């Protein structure tokens, strides 16, 4: 039993997309831009050459927010989407009927159709692969060249994520929606 969260020092991100490939290889996510559990958002800098706005050109790594109050779970008519014992939002592919309510409900656009399992799939914090093998972190965290992510149990006060969140200012995405995301972005 744990309460897994991810803390992102997102200013480290250089948009190299190592996390995207690591995730696909680890979890067998099919190729294709519309099939991904993890992504890096990017904006072109505002302004005109050569007066370009560096601050507007940030890279924004993201993935399923593993909401404590997940809208995708709320709307699922077959209870295919559920919370596991570690607080990770999971999908039971046997129950999923591809109704795609969850895709519409998710404010973070984190769900996608996996053609191999015919499931509306999502990031699982590598639960059935790495964590199931007893490893302590996710593929995206592990591979990242600039070490954007820290993964861990927020219920453990001695964990690195707990320490980071106690000491560094942070925010979460669309927190006004009351979804209580478990991805925290450090400022």
């Amino acid at each position, binding site marked *: 039993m744990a309460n897994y969260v991810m803390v992102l*020092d997102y*200013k*480290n991100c*250089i*948009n*190299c*997309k*190592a996390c*995207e*490939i*690591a995730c*696909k*290889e*680890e*979890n*067998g996510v*099919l*190729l*294709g*831009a*519309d099939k991904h559990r993890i*992504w890096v*958002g990017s*904006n*072109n*800098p505002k*302004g*005109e*050459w*050569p007066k*370009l706005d*560096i601050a507007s*050109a940030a*890279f*924004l790594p*993201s993935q399923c927010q593993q909401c404590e109050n997940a809208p995708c779970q709320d709307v699922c008519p077959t209870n295919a989407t559920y919370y596991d014992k570690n607080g990770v939002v999971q999908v039971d592919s046997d129950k999923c009927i591809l109704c795609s309510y969850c895709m519409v409900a998710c*404010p*973070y*656009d984190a769900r996608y159709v996996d053609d*191999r399992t015919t499931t509306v799939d999502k990031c699982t914090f590598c639960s*059935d*692969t790495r964590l*199931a*093998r007893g490893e302590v*972190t996710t*593929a995206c*965290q*592990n*591979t*990242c*060249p*600039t*070490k954007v992510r*820290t993964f*861990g149990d927020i219920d453990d006060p001695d964990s*690195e994520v707990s320490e980071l969140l106690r000491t560094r200012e942070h*925010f979460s*995405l*669309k927190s006004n929606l009351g979804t209580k995301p478990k991805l925290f*972005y450090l400022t």
Partner: protein
Amino acid sequence: MDVGISRRRFLKGSAALTVLGGGTIGLTPLLGNEEGDHEAAAVMTKTSTKEAKLVPTLCEMCVNKCAAIARVEDGVVVKLDPNPLFPKSKNMLCPRGNAGIQALYDPDRLKRPMIRTGEKGKGEFKEVSWEEAYDAILNGTDKFPGMAKILDEEEDNRSSFLFCAGEGMAEHTFKMFYEAFGSANWLNHASICLQTVASAYGVTMGAYPQADLENAEYVIMAGANRAEAIVTPDTMDIFKRTKGRGAKLICVDPRFTNTAAKADKWLGIKPGTDLAFVLALTYVTLDEELYNKEYVTNNFNDFDLYKEHILSSGYTPKWAAKITGLKESDIYEIAREFAAHAPRAIYYPGRRSTFSKNDFQLRRAMAIFQALSGGIDTKGGLVFGSKLPLGEHKGVVPMYYQARERAVNKNKQNDGYDHCVVVSGGGSWIAWRNRFLENVMPYKVRGAFIYKHNPMLNMPNTAKTAEMFKKMELVVAIDTMPSDTVMYADVVLPECTYLERTDPVFSFGGVEPAIAQRNKVIEPMYDTKPVNEILHGLTKKISKPLFEITKKHDMFLQDEITASESDLDENSTMTLAELSKQKEETMYADEFDLTKVFEHSQEEVNEHMVAEKHGEEAAKQIKEHGIFYPNMEKYYKQLGENKFQYYPENKKSYSVNGGVPKTPTKKIECNLANLASKGVDPMPTWRDEYNFKVPNGKFKLLTGRHAQFTQTGTSNNIALHDLIHTNYIWINEKVAKEQGIAFGDKVEVSSATGKTIIRAYPTEKIAPDTVFFVHGFGEESEKLTTAYKNGGCDNAVIEDNIEPVYGAAAMHETNVEIRKV
């Protein structure tokens, strides 16, 4: 703060950046139809909870050689993870490192030896056995002559064969073959890579240093793009600390790169004018006496001369502002801030191709500017680092009296050579090729061995390279992929990929030195072999017959192996003929047996090389863990999820020489007087011809890198294609609008050299008189399913301008026209 990037917006945004299929311009042929997608899906892996074999190895998806651990389930490599033990790569694998699995399981791989059956360059081959391939190399076929015929006709001039290789751990193995063969014509990637930067730092401070970006407080990164052209550990060290988090990063680049996006300040300089920028920084440093006087007094040669030169030449920020397009005040500010942070301030040396003809002078000026701050061989500055020793792997280097020296011509006007002043070990590829085509070689070169190298696409003027290979009578290519260059081969020898072989063990110098080894993860697939086994087989075939040719043409050898009466002692029962035969056999075995170089497996050689210097335990450790350095088990600690200790702080090699330069004089060389007689400026000097000029209606073409591909080596990798499907030409938005060019439109890019077709990416990230696209696309080999005719080929357009000192290819000296098609 707006950080909510939705999937839909992401797709739209990415399309604008990279076109991830879908959306904006519709599915490209590459992304293809559903069928194509399913094919792609078949090669994606997934890990499981099954028992797995974990093998420590080293990545070969680019030059960095980061440490990886391969996870093998049921004999299949399902995942590559970073190996945390390596201080150079500090527990990371970039996207290419992760995509290494697709290099292994690429269905287009070279699978069996092949010999040419059709017209040269058409890619018509038949698959043969290894023995048949070796025989074709020695004896030829009805399509091409063999090595024996060529060498006999050239009277055993071993230099009638060219040897060329790309960068890699086994380049060493191939080079041993070149040395044993006895040619003097060795060309490698240096002259299309970092020749001028490495050499200019070498002659100025005695070494091509590393940068301690982990501890620097102020970094000028000009013409280097570490967010996209990833170098370990530099990329990992710097971007965790920019944006007010410990290091101020100044990015100077004619493009707004990802490095610019992560910098604290970005200056969009005019291409090719960095030298003026550095000279002006130097001017301020000298004029305002911001330099480290003690360091300069102790460690400089000709400082006063250089100071006088810079000040009297009037290299003021005002002067430089006109040339570079930068603001005078920015130049002042950067010079002063740099000095204030010294010695924890770095003008980053970079690691890239030569862009401008003045690159040697630029690098010299950068090295001297850095040295003025005293930030040499010191924490937070440029560092020499230390390197762990390795035992030797001895080769065979026979004396061939008939072998001629390297095919270069002395220059009649000065002390240098035609095309360049200095001929380095790696030679000048582009000048060599042009001399070959112009028939001005001192002798005939008729054959070429190519290892892991793609000259067709890696050097300016593709058309000329094709002509060279067509003229070359016997071309042997050793590679893993059917590249454009392989299409011009007469004999193709398929190497296995890096995950199927153990490569020569390597010592990585630096602040935290270590020895690392690429261990074989799985047995070679198909009928492929590692290069040392390929060369073992080949030398078994050719060694004796080639010795016969030497014997025929080499009078000195004949003398040495012919017995005379005086050789016979009284009690000998041998005849003269028998004694001669014995002498010949001994001579062959001792000096001409080329097979000896490759008789031991790579594993055996590595074990010996490590054990000789560090003991048996070390050899065992490197096999088991991939990494070794003394006291590793005591020093190495994982301090947090993202934090590792490799060496305790007081054991790190920040300073190994007390700050003293490594030149023979132990001084920073400001003035290289010996170069003056060869027509090279002895001190960095700005010349009018360096000014940025583009005729109306044309654009300066820039090329470069990004994080998802490595040159042409990864062009067929399907997982990387999933990230970036093709390359795009950056055109300033306003210019594109004027010309009616929209995102995704096809444009033709042309120069005096040639043309290429590529899709457009209008952006404000580039100046109106400049265009850019990434290198490594536009392959013409039909055997590369994914890469074939995908995107634009820069070297089809880039003119073959030669940098005058080392003969490097100057990649950013071409003006192009663009036209919507």
